[in-house]
């Protein structure tokens, strides 16, 4: 039971600045997921919390105690590693008992704790085996068990599921979720898999190049990404990005040129007023691109052609070409007969559009989720 | 020499040493402690003797006459102009190195290939091939001496039975040298074999399957698939073995003693003989140091070569 607080945490390896001014507070019993592409500093951050890496700057506080100079064994944490890191020369039972024996817990209590953890995880029959005699999923459960028996203040997970095959990963994800309801402990979970991040996290921390990009609940991040990178990282199929230019026209602002000019409603125009003449990027979630006319007000209608379709059964993905750009639409009715080469009209609800500044992690300039789109939008052809 | 250890805080008073030790972070302290036993042993029993030897090599340091006057480079000049050293010892050492390593490598590769297949009696053959690895060079040399004995050796008997004349194995330079090379190859081929076998067994299967699909002939598979993939391990074998071969002592000492008439002397024997037979310790250490410089340079070259094949550097 503890709160974990990172204040201005930095990590340098010589010239490499692996982690840059990370501020993060994980509330008691909260499950926070660190997500980001490979090499972005997730593991390093986690290992600093664990005490496995020295902290180059800033403080880490666990349960109200600054732990910067404490060795891992004194931090009251438990950790699950990507490759499980089970002690190869010990049986499963001894693996689970190792940490408790180090803390001089009486053998009878150890047995009780292990029985409890084993029944939660369903690993009772494996107790006498060595790690080499276990499947990947079983090893993963033992690794979880090794954490549970310790009753630590904080759980740390470093990509615990990434060595499992897709099916097992989905299953273990659900088990982890269930586990949380039974063992509520402050947790920090590192992954590069956005599905895990979305499904497991109370809150998600998106990192890139050692910098925190955004912290928030899964829906917040999905709906109102703070920058283009966060938008692109979460969601599958990924968000479409279309480069356009903000242009002054007929006394108002338009975005030029995605098929045609998009005339901006007042609120949006106000937000983009400082970017006249500059390139910006429209972010469109695939599921917000609808085939056909669309019904409501505030819809842009565009004419394009279909490049190809992907039938997934529950829905279709459709790749569309508008002018020289292509975008992907998702959630298309699977019964709709579409073919590459067909001309198609589609529509975009403008209240779902994001506008980012140019660049790979251009900050958001306008996010419909944040503000209400008031004025009706016009589509000029 | 880069072995800073806790043992090496140079001449500081104890208190400041203790303080400095505590000021180190515990990770550094841990790594120094891990290194200390090896570091201390290396300093005491290799670095110190080498420094003393270097000192001795500049002095007139006879075994029983501890005059020890400084003579500068005299020993070095003597050795580097000694025809024995230049025209016998050095060529012998290098020839032994080149022939033993190359024959051992080729044989080892062939044997590793053989052992990499499964056939009846595999276990016995492997045990027999590994046998020399466990026999002392001194014993192996004795065996060879006996087998090649001029009058009563089994080789002489076989040659005699075949109706050829006898070869005076140990009283001529080249026959003696051939026996030394043969013994060395006998002793060390197993070493090549097990390392190369380990290499062969760890090779990935896919390139072979691809080659099979391409209907490559077996010889082409060997030269174009196996050899390139084996290059790193072969490079390691060659470097290590060459370095060890350069310091060969036991075989030569027992088989020929460097004779006849110093004609099969190699570098280690030369240094030993100067020091303990001619009792000229200064000259012996000078020879030993010259040898170290030669193999150091060669080793450096080989290391460069090795580095080209694989990343040994960390």
């Amino acid at each position, binding site marked *: 039971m503890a709160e974990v607080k990172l204040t201005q945490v930095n990590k340098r390896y010589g010239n490499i600045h692996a982690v840059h001014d990370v501020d993060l507070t994980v509330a008691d019993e909260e499950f926070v997921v660190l997500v980001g592409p490979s090499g972005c500093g997730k593991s390093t951050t986690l290992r600093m919390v664990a005490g496995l890496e020295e902290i180059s700057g800033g403080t880490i506080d666990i349960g109200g105690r600054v732990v910067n100079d404490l060795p891992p064994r004194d931090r009251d944490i438990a950790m699950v590693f990507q490759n499980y890191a089970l002690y190869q020369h010990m049986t499963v039972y001894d693996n689970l008992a190792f940490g408790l024996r180090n803390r001089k817990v009486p053998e009878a209590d150890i047995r009780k704790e292990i029985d409890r953890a084993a029944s939660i995880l369903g690993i009772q029959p494996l107790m006498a085996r060595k790690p080499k005699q276990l499947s990947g999923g079983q090893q993963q459960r033992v690794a979880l068990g090794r954490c549970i028996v310790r009753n630590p203040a904080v759980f740390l997970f470093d990509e615990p599921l990434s060595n499992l095959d897709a099916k097992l990963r989905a299953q273990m994800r659900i088990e982890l979720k269930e586990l949380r309801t039974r063992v509520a402990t402050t947790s920090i979970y590192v992954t590069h898999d956005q599905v895990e991040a979305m499904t497991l996290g109370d809150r998600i921390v998106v990192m890139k190049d050692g910098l925190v990009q955004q912290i928030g609940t899964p829906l917040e991040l999905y709906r109102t990404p703070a920058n283009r990178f966060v938008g692109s990282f979460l969601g599958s199929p990924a968000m479409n990005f279309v480069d356009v230019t903000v242009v002054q026209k007929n006394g108002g602002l338009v975005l030029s040129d995605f098929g045609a000019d998009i005339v901006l409603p007042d609120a949006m125009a106000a937000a983009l007023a400082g970017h006249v003449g500059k390139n910006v990027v429209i972010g469109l979630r695939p599921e917000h691109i609808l085939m056909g006319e669309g019904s409501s007000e505030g819809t842009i209608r565009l004419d394009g052609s279909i490049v190809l379709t992907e039938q997934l059964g529950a829905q279709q993905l459709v790749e569309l070409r508008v002018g020289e750009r292509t975008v992907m639409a998702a959630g298309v009715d699977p019964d709709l007969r579409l073919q590459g080469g067909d001309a198609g009209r589609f529509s975009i609800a403008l209240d779902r559009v994001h506008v980012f500044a140019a660049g790979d992690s251009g900050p958001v300039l306008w996010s419909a989720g944040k503000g209400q789109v008031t004025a009706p939008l016009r589509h000029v052809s | 020499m880069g072995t800073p250890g806790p043992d090496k805080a140079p001449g500081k008073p104890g208190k400041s040493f203790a303080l400095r030790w505590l000021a180190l972070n515990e990770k550094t302290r841990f790594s120094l402690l891990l290194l200390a036993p090896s570091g201390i042993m290396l300093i005491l029993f290799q670095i110190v003797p080498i420094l003393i030897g270097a000192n001795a090599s500049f002095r007139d340091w006879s075994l029983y006459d501890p005059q020890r006057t400084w003579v500068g480079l005299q020993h070095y000049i003597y050795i580097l102009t000694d025809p024995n050293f230049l025209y016998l010892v050095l060529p012998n050492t290098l020839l032994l190195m080149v022939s033993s390593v190359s024959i051992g490598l080729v044989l080892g590769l062939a044997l590793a290939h053989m052992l990499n297949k499964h056939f009846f009696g595999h276990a016995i053959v492997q045990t027999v091939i590994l046998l020399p690895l*466990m026999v*002392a060079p001194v014993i192996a040399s004795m065996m060879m001496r*006996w087998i090649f004995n001029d009058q009563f050796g089994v080789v002489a008997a076989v040659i005699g039975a075949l109706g050829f004349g006898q070869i005076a194995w140990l009283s001529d330079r080249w026959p003696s040298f051939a026996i030394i090379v043969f013994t060395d190859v006998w002793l060390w081929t197993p070493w090549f074999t097990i390392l190369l076998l380990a290499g062969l067994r760890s090779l990935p299967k896919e390139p072979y399957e691809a080659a099979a699909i391409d209907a490559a002939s077996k010889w082409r598979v060997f030269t174009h698939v196996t050899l390139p993939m084996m290059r790193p391990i072969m490079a390691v074998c060659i470097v290590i073995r060459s370095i060890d071969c350069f310091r060969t002592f036991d075989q030569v000492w027992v088989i020929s003693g460097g004779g006849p008439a110093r004609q099969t002397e190699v570098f280690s024997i030369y240094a030993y003989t100067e020091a303990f037979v001619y009792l000229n310790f200064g000259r012996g250490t000078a020879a030993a140091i010259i040898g170290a410089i030669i193999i150091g340079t060669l080793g450096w070259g080989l290391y460069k070569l090795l580095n080209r094949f694989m990343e040994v550097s960390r």
Partner: protein
Amino acid sequence: MSVATDTGYTPPKRGSFLDALAPGGKRAFFLLSVLGVLLIFAFPVFWLVLTSMRPAWGVYYVHRGLEFTLGNYLEVLEQEVVVHAFFNSFVIATLSTFFSLTVTVTSGYMLSRFTGKLANAWFGTIYIFRTIPYITWVLPLYFVTQWWGIFDTYLGLLLPHIAVHICFFSWLMKGFFDGIDPSMESAALIDGCTRWGAFLRVALPSALPGIAALSILCWLWTWNEFLFALILTSHNTPMITVVMAQFVSELGTEWNLMSATAVMAMVPALIVAIFGQKYVVRGLKV
């Protein structure tokens, strides 16, 4: 014994004589080469054993006559120096194996787990000292051990024997630890171990197969070692290899006795060849 034989193939255009052989002939050729190999590697040892069991008068005609005896062995064992030498070699080999491994296991671990200047410097040092010929530092040790008063004692031989393995073994040990996942030790640190605890209780047990193989080889190498024993010992601490080499020059003609001694000195090697091979091969991942 060409490579082509082993792969069972000969390129057609080269016109190897194997082409002329019937399909069964290739097999026969393979068997013949196996037999040839066995002969080359086993015959010298076989011949030595045979010689050691021939009576003194028959030793020059080992291959003629069928009289065998174990008398040579008894005669050799009556010599005090031989028994003494066997005992000494056993003690030195055992102690030096133990200490060599103890000393190098930590330095190998350090090389495997730490990066940075210290580790790099140590790695370079090891490589340099690996290339330096033994004679270069054992010659001066003849004096150094005398100054330190340990010449011709166990200690005077044991310590150099520990030192000689530092470079090579540290490198091998690094390899063993490189094969062990370091996150296991991280887990141990979190589970309440100190760094030493993680090393001794988690990393070390996992490296045991390799260390066991190395200990067998180290024992054999020390048992078989000659140069150190020749330079650093005298009458007080005779070692078996030196005693045998002296036989060659002193009893130059009594091949039956020399062979008997040699065979006895090979017994540990044979035991290892038969029983320990499995561990060596497994530990070194052959």
